[in-house]
């Protein structure tokens, strides 16, 4: 156990799994030079056959991962920034998500596509996407959104060992966050299992990716006002730990979803709909959503930040919800 960052957790997970299984390999643009630090030392350790710099052709190499996976290897694709998944939607949706099904279960596609959510630092609209929810609408893709270095390591290792395709979204606002990382080479966090990141009794804050630390800060602030907030981190969006979410909301009677994505058709909206459908009887007030405004992200640092969820916005929503003092229906 040693404290390490989220980026280092990614590096360790990849390193350990590549050491463990010679069929695992990694490819992506500029991963040898290694821009974000998640493949430091990999070429030396594994050679250029297993650590591949790709041409700038996301559809090509992500589709190639599908083919390579079908014949018995386990590719990790580093797609850098999640905005670069759009040119590859063809292969992600029509091939990767659908091949196992359309061929009646004949192939397996054990592959991981990693990309970061690169928002909040003046990179403008073409580089600031938080687009996991688009993929949630497509069956056949597992989707993980770890928010801590600990979860990142355990879930990425599990994703690499998983026999289904997994999209791993890495929130860049979490990159420098640190956890104690287990050294156990078999440290795995099963996909589809959420976690209560903080217990509470007055309301449930269900937070996604980089919204988790914001929710924890908000919960801290709320505690000082006498409001006890529970913070639920689904950690994986597909499969979604609906049981954990519903149990928390049934306990607290109130729910706020927090999601760094644009609000419309976000993961946060999906979770809100789930709660309104399946825990309605326990609800003491509306299901509130804190998400990024449905506008593009501007470059200018003067006006970008206010568009995202913040602890302040979460606190305000929580106050409003608790103040409503509606009686439980059940």
């Amino acid at each position, binding site marked *: 156990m040693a404290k390490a960052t989220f980026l280092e957790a990614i590096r360790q997970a990849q390193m350990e799994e590549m050491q463990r299984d010679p069929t695992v390999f990694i490819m992506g643009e500029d991963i040898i030079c290694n821009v974000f630090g998640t493949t430091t030392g990999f070429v030396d350790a594994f050679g250029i056959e297993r650590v591949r710099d790709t041409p700038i052709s996301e559809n090509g190499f992500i589709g*190639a991962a*599908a083919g*390579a996976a079908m014949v018995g290897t386990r590719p990790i694709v580093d797609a850098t920034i999640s905005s670069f998944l759009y040119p590859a939607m063809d292969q992600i949706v029509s091939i990767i998500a659908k091949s196992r099904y359309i061929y009646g279960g004949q192939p397996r596609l054990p592959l991981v596509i990693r990309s970061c959510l690169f928002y909040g630092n003046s990179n403008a609209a073409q580089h600031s996407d938080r687009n996991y929810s688009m993929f949630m609408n497509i069956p056949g893709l597992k989707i993980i959104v770890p928010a801590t270095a600990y979860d990142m390591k355990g879930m990425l290792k599990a994703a690499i060992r998983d026999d289904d395709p997994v999209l791993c979204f890495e929130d860049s606002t979490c990159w420098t966050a640190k956890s104690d990382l287990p050294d156990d080479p078999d440290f795995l966090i099963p996909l589809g299992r959420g976690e209560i990141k903080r217990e509470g009794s007055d309301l449930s804050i269900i937070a996604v990716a980089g919204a988790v630390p914001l929710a924890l800060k908000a919960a801290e602030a709320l505690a000082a006002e006498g409001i006890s907030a529970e913070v639920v981190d689904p950690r994986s969006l597909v499969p979604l730990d609906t049981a954990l979410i519903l149990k928390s909301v049934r306990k607290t009677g109130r729910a706020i979803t927090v999601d760094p994505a644009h609000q419309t058709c976000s993961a946060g909206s999906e979770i809100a709909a789930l709660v309104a459908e399946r825990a309605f009887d326990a609800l003491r007030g509306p299901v509130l959503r804190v998400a990024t405004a449905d506008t593009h992200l501007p470059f200018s640092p003067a006006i970008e930040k206010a568009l995202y969820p913040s602890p302040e916005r979460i606190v305000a929503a929580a106050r409003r919800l608790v103040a409503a003092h509606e009686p439980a229906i059940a």
Partner: protein
Amino acid sequence: MTDQQNDRSLEKYRRMQRIRQFEDLAEAIHAAGEIPGALHTYAGQEASGVGACMALADSDYMVGTHRSHGHPIAKGAKLRPLMAELLGKATGVCKGKGGSMHMSDFSVGSLGETSIVGSGVPVAAGAALGSKLLGNGRVALCFFGDGATNEGAFHEGMNLAAVWRLPTVFVCENNGYAVSTPAHATVPVKDIAERAKAYNMPAIIVDGQDVDAVEAAVSEAVERARTGGGPTLVETKTYRYADHAVNMGRILLDRGAEVDEWRKRDPLTLHRAALLAAGVAAATLDTIEQEVAAEVADAIEFARSSPYPTQEEAFDDVFVERLPIPDFING
């Protein structure tokens, strides 16, 4: 002809016959309402598929297209699961989930017949990359049409295979049309083969009606791929007899005279003539035709008597583990 050559030549004839007779029957039962959805037939292109696949080892990989009936048969697939697939039965090669556009039989190395135009090219490059990494010596062959070469996926897959010298063979089945659009209206080069130059890739143009010529061309490409020489683009000049697809909108295109012209160089007729000229007895070929007819009849019988999948099976194969079945299914 040596015995072995003779066997191969007869096998080519058999596979072409299988495709033709399969397609004839498929069209008939589609017209009779037995097959749902659209039907993209391969009749006319048999020499391209069979010639190419005969150049492969059984363990080699192959990726195809929406025009998916011919490729797996060419690669040696059994007819029963294919016919059952067309009818949407549980015994289909894809358990009834794929249908006419997706008749991929992984047991013969087929890694997908994908109906999104161009989308197979990166997959084939990837399969070849997998082979390379695993060191298993296998080659991945990719079929696609003339129209597909206008897709970005084609470009990216070709490029990747070229820079990484992957053991891939790209076979463009140039049948002159994409749905209703003639190739010359959307492809600015005379021969698709020209496009290989963008990747510094060798290219071969071959008469796609001549199964031996196709086999020879693809063999050269396979040999290059297997010995580390990287990918080749093979263009087979061929033709489909039927409309783009039956039951997918109206195709208002009069190709009558053109079809007649091409039928004069029907790949089955040509190969039959070649075999006869090489001294094969007509009776031998007749027997093959009859055997294939029996096979096809057996396949349709099998397909008809097979059960449909159960509703729960709709939730299988999204992931390796079955999805939970929602309440509204079966009550």
